[in-house]
């Protein structure tokens, strides 16, 4: 298939940047979206032009490194997949595809389609851990009984791959889905209860400091999340935070 690509090009963090249009021919419908960009880049390199810079690592939908706002949606029109798992068969011959970086004040563009998502890292560092004594006498985790429902919900929250699609999709560039998934995965488990109060206060404080927006409960994040992280987590974070603030 033949496609028109409108891609955001930006030399560096300070440059203004803008959309550039490229034609690409003979795209195989079985290619992934990133493979299609690889083909485009090979062509650009052959012509002596700068290739389009984009983030990727595992290319199997588990690392959360790939990003891209494709035709106005993070990770493109398909549901429940990352950009690396999006296939070109989702598009039609002759389509125009607009490709932009994730946009948020807290995710500044580094170059072309790559943004700096280290704000997520700092939120995680603010409290997304449990303190465990690892000096050789670590307890077997399975010796602590956990309700099946809670274990499942914690595991589901922990499937968040920190890609940032929630922020990209949100009209407010809010990071509540991400932060709440990280709060939830610990808050639900006995090991995480010990530090629960401080965790939620610190993580929300960091989230606010990074300049993310607030949550209007539009639900866009949940729908665009490649892992289907649920809004239930945001409600849980709201409860945890309320509890932590009053006591």
């Amino acid at each position, binding site marked *: 298939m033949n496609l028109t690509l409108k891609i955001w090009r930006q030399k560096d963090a300070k440059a203004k940047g803008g959309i550039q249009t490229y034609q690409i021919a003979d795209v195989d419908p079985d290619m992934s979206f990133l493979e299609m960009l690889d083909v485009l880049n090979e062509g650009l390199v052959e012509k002596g032009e700068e290739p389009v810079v984009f983030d990727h690592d595992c290319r199997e939908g588990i690392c959360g490194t790939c990003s891209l706002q494709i035709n106005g949606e993070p990770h493109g029109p398909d549901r429940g997949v990352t950009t690396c798992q999006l296939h070109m068969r989702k598009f039609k011959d002759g389509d125009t595809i607009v490709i932009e970086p994730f946009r948020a004040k807290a995710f500044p563009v580094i170059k072309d389609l790559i943004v700096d998502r280290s704000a997520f890292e700092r939120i995680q560092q603010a409290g997304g851990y449990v303190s465990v004594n690892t000096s050789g006498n670590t307890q077997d985790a399975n010796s602590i009984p956990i309700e099946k429902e809670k274990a499942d919900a914690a595991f589901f929250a922990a499937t968040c791959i920190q890609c940032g699609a929630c922020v990209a999709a949100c009209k407010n560039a809010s990071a509540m889905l991400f932060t709440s998934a990280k709060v939830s995965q610990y808050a639900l488990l006995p090991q995480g209860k010990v530090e629960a109060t401080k965790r939620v206060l610190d993580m929300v404080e960091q989230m606010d400091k990074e300049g993310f927006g607030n949550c209007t409960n539009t639900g866009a994040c949940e729908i665009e999340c490649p892992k289907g992280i649920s809004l239930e987590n945001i409600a849980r974070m709201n409860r945890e935070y309320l509890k932590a603030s*009053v006591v």
Partner: protein
Amino acid sequence: MAKSALLKSSLAKKYWMAFTGLFLCVFLVGHLAGNLQLLVSGEGARDQFNEYALFMTTNPVVRILSIVTFVSILFHAIDGVILTINNRKARPQGYVSFRPSTNSTWSSRNMGILGTVILAFIVIHLVNFWGEMKFGGLDNTMYTTANGDEVKDLYSLTIMTFQDPEWGLVWAFGYLIAMIAIAFHLYHGFGSGFQSLGLNHPQYNSIVRKIGVAFAIIVPLLFAIIPFYIYFVLETI
């Protein structure tokens, strides 16, 4: 830390938004119950409504509730404006192509605009009725009810406003527009308020959602019927 967390943090703003918003939902039901008495016709109607208005302006519990309502509207509006501005700032550079309609409702994305329409309505509404009642020229039209209470005749003011041959329908349509704004505001807001307060449970979510949609349709609809009923159906006074 904990104290400032309940005032300044992003989540605190949402708690206040949800708390005041849901309180205003309760207020709407109370207000509607009062307004529906305007559908009664005959001379008894004037007495009933004016006695009710007298009760609403003198009863101490109602007075406290009305102060809480005013404060809630103020808080809700100011907080709403702050949130909307902060949220815009969180994405200084927008997308060339953004398709939010694929993942969210129009109402949920336009709460600020809907709120502004509602606020404009509340101001006009207060000037027309509450202001007249409290400070205005209604003193000239004192009315004595069957019980012998001498009251400001809010009933006649309301009926004459909406039966005015030139402006009655204009007021009624303005009122309708405001009620449509409230309907859309609550179509998202009702359920959203529960979520903001952390009240989300898989077993009850769909019920809350359904009650919210029903509330968003029924309450503004009943409000909106009244001025048209007064204009088209009720005998002129």
